[in-house]
């Protein structure tokens, strides 16, 4: 029983151990990502690519080594916020990179903004962050939800789809995606003939929804699904024989290289819009994919490229300030000024809202040598987040 008391004391005294060490030599990058929970795979993917980016672009600037401090958001807003505070106030990181989910991002935003911590968003697509909730301390190397799907609406109308059915999980990102697609599509002249929003958690079966889509006979079905549900959706879509009658289009993550193998035949012929697909043909992408393959024995995904580019942004910004992060404003300005030709093509930050300006790729999956993979179908150049509700 003494042990139990001891344990109690250890637990309590560990509070003392939280006393932070003063920022010494290294530049600390706080990786605020999910390492457990539903999005753990993406958190790891981004971290791996970030590390790869440091290897490629240099992990030392002016004698200061770049080190990572990883904290697990669990994909939950509360944990994410708590860990964000730890990284900012206890670890005193110089810059934050993350998170995966928009909910966590929304929870973190005020703390980051108020503490004036440079923050590079490496995945979460929450529209507000490049809209009303924008901050001078935040840039995004990934995308905003509307940035990816809005141009796709116009593109689909222009390419002959007039009546489209929509489907996405019933949560903010799902609705944002659909709303912006709808806006782009309707602006161009198309009609939405039906919408379905299955529950985000625990949709056990897409069969009922697919049967409804089938009944409606649209020109195309446009969806947003990612991760496990994307696998399940694409498999069901194929199994119900919709593949032969109704073209399926989606926001890029639908057939991510991370999952496309598990999706089997159903993934064939799907078209989509994405900020990245592995087969983009440029030198930077080739270098990135070669490096990633050499290290991880598979293709790097769109999640990975966001981590890779985030590393490059930070390294280049550090170079611009000679490794001096004591003036946070100057460091942040340097971040916002970074521009380069990366795997996704030319990229720079929108001075208006800090969101990345990038190409949006329309891709189509096809089968070559028994392997289904996306290839670039069309490119929509230099897409900005269209929002103007940001006032910095």
């Amino acid at each position, binding site marked *: 029983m003494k042990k139990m008391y001891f344990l109690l004391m250890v637990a309590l005294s560990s509070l003392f151990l939280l006393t932070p060490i003063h920022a010494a030599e290294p530049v600390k990058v706080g990786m605020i990502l999910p390492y457990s929970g539903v999005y753990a795979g993406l958190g790891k993917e981004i971290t791996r690519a970030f590390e790869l980016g440091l290897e490629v672009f240099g992990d030392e600037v002016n004698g200061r080594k770049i080190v990572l401090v990883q904290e697990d958001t669990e994909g939950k807003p509360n944990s994410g916020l708590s860990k964000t505070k730890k990284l900012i106030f206890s670890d005193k990181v110089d810059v934050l990179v993350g998170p995966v989910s928009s909910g966590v991002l929304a929870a973190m935003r005020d703390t980051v903004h108020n503490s004036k911590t440079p923050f590079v968003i490496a995945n979460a697509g929450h529209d507000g962050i490049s809209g009303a909730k924008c901050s001078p301390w935040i840039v995004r190397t990934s995308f905003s939800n509307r940035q990816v799907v809005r141009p796709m609406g116009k593109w689909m109308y222009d390419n002959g789809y007039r009546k489209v059915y929509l489907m996405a999980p019933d949560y903010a990102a799902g609705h944002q995606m659909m709303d912006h697609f709808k806006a782009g599509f309707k602006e161009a002249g198309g009609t939405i003939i039906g919408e379905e929003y299955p529950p985000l958690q625990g949709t056990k079966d897409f069969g*009922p929804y697919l*049967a409804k889509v089938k009944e409606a006979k649209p020109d195309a079905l446009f969806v947003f699904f990612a991760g496990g549900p994307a696998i399940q959706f694409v498999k069901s879509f194929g199994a119900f024989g919709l593949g032969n009658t109704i073209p399926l289009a989606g926001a890029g993550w639908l057939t991510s290289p991370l999952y496309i193998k598990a999706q089997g035949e159903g993934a064939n012929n799907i078209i989509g819009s994405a900020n990245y697909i592995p087969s983009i043909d440029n030198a930077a992408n080739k270098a990135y994919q070669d490096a990633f393959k050499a290290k991880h024995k598979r293709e790097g995904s769109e999640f990975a490229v966001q981590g890779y580019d985030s590393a490059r942004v930070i390294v280049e910004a550090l170079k611009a300030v000679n490794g001096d992060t004591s003036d946070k404003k100057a460091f942040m300005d340097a971040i916002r000024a970074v521009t380069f030709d990366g795997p996704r093509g030319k990229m720079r930050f929108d001075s208006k809202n800090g969101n990345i300006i990038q190409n949006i790729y329309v891709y189509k999956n096809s089968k070559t040598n028994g392997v289904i993979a996306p290839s670039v179908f069309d490119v929509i150049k230099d897409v900005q987040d269209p929002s103007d509700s940001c006032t910095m």
Partner: protein
Amino acid sequence: MYSDPTFLVIQTLNGLQLAMLLFLLSVGLSVVFGLMNIVNLAHGTLYMFGAYFGIWVYNLTESFWAALALAPLGVMLLGMFFYEILIKKLRNAPPLQQVLVTFGLIFVGLDAVRMSWGNLATSIPKPEIFSGSVLIFGEIYPSYRLFIIGLGILVMLVLYFCLERTRVGSIIRAGVDDREMVSCLGINVDLAFFGVFCIGCYLAGLSGVVAGAVFPVEPGMDMSVLILTLIVVVVGGLGSLKGAVVGSLMIGLAETYGQVFIPEYASVTIYALMAIILLKRPGGLFPARAVQ
């Protein structure tokens, strides 16, 4: 369009396939819970291991059928292992301790899966003969779903036969009525119940493999089915085959029809259904033992 009979048939089939998956999952939990008084929250973990063992076997053999045959056995062994080292000791512990231990097992199982197979969602390919579709009233319908329905009905019949027509079945039913009396007839009733536990684990593994070809296989898949399974169990009533059958049919069909007819409330249909049933029948519909 909702009045179109073909549409209704298709949706009913969808509901049935979900119901059968739920049945495979819940019957074991219901029995373990209702008859052995073990609050095994880690039942979903067994399901997850079923799916991952399935993928493992599939990757080695390239055969769905090998996965279907072997993975559930692996899960059963895993279940037996945990029974021997942990659950047995807690047979008579207060329920809250069982909750804590099985919660611990959920955590351990989750990380074990992540360490062994990674974090990314994946899937088991369907077997060749059920990878296509069939025509039902002129509608294309995935044949694998019919396979699930068939398998579910088959398991139901086998369980019914074993329980109602065999001596072991009599022993189990008698054990539910009066465990000590069965012992006094010279029958090792604990062994019979251990067998029941093993079958419960086996079926959880089986449903993991079967579901792994439809649903994403990923860490965390255990938690989403756990709740669904518990709902089936309490709706049907603890410990009875009839309860598991009726409970899974109700929940499976309610979930499907809910998504079709009241999509706005799809995420709460089954919760609402359960709440209503529990308020009317505080012990579920067909409990094996009357609630005191």
